[in-house]
């Protein structure tokens, strides 16, 4: 467990851990459920030391049963608790799909009882996880009214969005990118703060073209922007942070300014979030577009295991640079 201290840089993983710790201290209704999160501290050690601090009934190791423990978290949430469940890997969320989309998502709409539930889902590739430990599942839930979806890219956003998710009266799926866990560090405020759900963040201001992205891809977009700056191609990087509800205004504002839009995501291309953003831009910003809407995304295959295959699969900086040059030339 990392305690908050002003001026100290923390990793993305530590930011998640701190948010959980601080929320559990602040609100006795907050409790954690998941596989191996107790004495072991979770597959990624995010809850290391938590059970010792908060006891066995607030840091519950569950049987291997994603549907069962998500359902249980829904029941506890209906009763006024604030459960945070951990998927060991986001890929396993498929086992709980029915509880999430049919029970949690529709509950308030159907009979009015709020379900203040957070599902933490460690997702994404680049970690040699293969087809069952590397996927992006946000697209499945993007199409299920009643859920909120967030996917932070920085330690600051990771901490602030997790706090906002825990305080939200709705089911929130919190996609945390495994590749970022220990690879990025940043100073976050020592005092309590939240990053509001539903607000995108312009991570780099630019005038040439808008790159709309989220999670690990934000860092590739920023890298591409640095490379292209020397060529006079000025990227604006819009980090969505929240996927549902989507901050359409920030997206439209950026594209109205630059006139060009590229959507980058790690999820498969077909039916991904990029498709929806492209459609929205075509509907709302058609008259200010100076070039085609470009999508950079993973091909429509499972995430492969072997290094050259996974490198081929994942969008990379050079994909963004090449596409940006082409788009900028319009």
């Amino acid at each position: 467990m990392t305690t908050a201290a002003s001026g100290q840089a923390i990793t993305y993983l530590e930011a998640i851990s701190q948010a959980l710790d601080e929320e559990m201290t602040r609100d006795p209704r907050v409790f954690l459920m998941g596989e191996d999160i107790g004495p072991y501290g979770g597959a990624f050690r995010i809850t290391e030391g938590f059970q010792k601090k908060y006891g066995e009934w607030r840091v519950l190791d569950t049987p291997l049963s994603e549907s069962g423990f998500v359902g249980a978290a829904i029941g506890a949430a209906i009763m006024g608790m604030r459960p945070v469940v951990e998927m060991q890997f986001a890929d396993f969320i498929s086992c709980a799909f029915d509880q999430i989309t049919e029970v949690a998502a529709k509950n308030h709409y159907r009979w009015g009882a709020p379900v203040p539930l957070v599902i933490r889902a460690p997702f994404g590739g680049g970690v040699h996880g293969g087809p069952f430990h590397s996927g992006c599942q946000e697209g499945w839930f993007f199409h299920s009214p009643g859920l909120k979806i967030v996917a932070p890219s920085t330690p600051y956003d990771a901490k602030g969005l997790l706090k906002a998710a825990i305080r939200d009266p709705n089911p929130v799926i919190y996609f945390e990118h495994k590749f970022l866990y220990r690879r990025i560090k940043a100073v976050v405020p020592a005092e309590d703060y939240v990053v509001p759900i539903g607000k995108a963040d312009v991570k780099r201001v630019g005038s040439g073209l808008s790159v709309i992205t989220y999670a690990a891809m934000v860092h590739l977009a920023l890298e591409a922007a640095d490379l292209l700056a020397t060529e006079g191609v000025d990227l604006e990087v819009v980090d969505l942070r929240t996927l549902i509800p989507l901050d359409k205004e920030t997206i439209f504002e950026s594209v109205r300014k630059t006139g060009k839009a590229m959507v980058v995501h790690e999820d498969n291309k077909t039916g991904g979030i990029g498709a929806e953003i492209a459609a929205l831009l075509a509907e709302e910003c058609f008259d200010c577009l100076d070039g085609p809407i470009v999508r950079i995304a993973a091909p429509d295959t499972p995430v492969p295991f072997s290094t050259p295959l996974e490198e081929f699969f994942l969008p990379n900086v050079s994909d963004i640079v090449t596409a940006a040059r082409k788009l900028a030339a319009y």
Partner: protein
Amino acid sequence: MDVSTEIKRADLLRMYYYLRLTRTLEDRITALYRQGRIVGGVYTSHGMEAISVGYASALERDDIIAPFHRDMGAFLIRGITPGEVVAQYLGKRTGPTKGKDGNVHIGDLKRGIIGFVSHLADNLPVATGIALAFKIRGESRVVITNTGDGGTSRGDFHEAMNFASVRALPVVFFCNNNQYAYSTPLRLQMAITDVADRAKAYGMPSEIVDGNDVAAVYLAAKRAIHRARSGAGPTFIETKTMRMHGHSEHDSAQYVPRELLEEWKKKDPILQAERMLVQLGYADEATVRDVGEQVAKAVEVGVEFAEHSPLPDGPETLDGVFATDDEVVP
């Protein structure tokens, strides 16, 4: 079982009233359906009324039910009025879900009712989470959930039973074994004769009771509730019964042998209850007639209320997808 010493006269008479109210209300709804005045399906507990009347009568006010679609008696006992039920069937704004959901999908937290999800057994993990909330907060409350024989084939049934038993949660699992899941007979649903055998695998005590004997159901529920409230953990209760109508009223259930229905007709729960009350000297012909008049009047008042209630306006479709902060304690 000596009913006269184990159940108070007033409680038995109250159960009899609710058996009759349930039958009369569901028969009236079926009639409305045949007249084409009800949209959507009609799912009744005809011939199985003793199960939900029995278990709901055994609960305290602060307890919770997570019922399934053949538990009308439990709704009525928890305080849902016949008018609200008919309004729900007619899709009226005065129904418990304001037209958002139909028929027996009634949920109301104030009256301790968790809304039913059509995916059978989905509410079982939810029930375990309700029980978990009680346990974490040290509350002396219990939850009863119910599903059918078919529902016990689903993974959620097994995940819920297992988790409840591992954590000794205050939940009682009922299984309405009415021999058919839609058209599928028990022998094609499972390779065992008694559903209760499933409980053994989870180290959970179970009981098999005559589901058409309201006193037997009530007493079994009382025992299980006592066990749950005292902290000893969950119980599984299989109630043997027969579905006397089709799965839904559109289904003539030709696949059920007529002799089987004839045999079970003799075991009708209302006739059984009447015989018992007369034998105990708690009721006579006049009581039976009076109760019949009371419930007929209650149902007619309800139908009148529902038919004169407004339908929701189309744009209300958009309301309530998300809960707002003011709906929950911050």
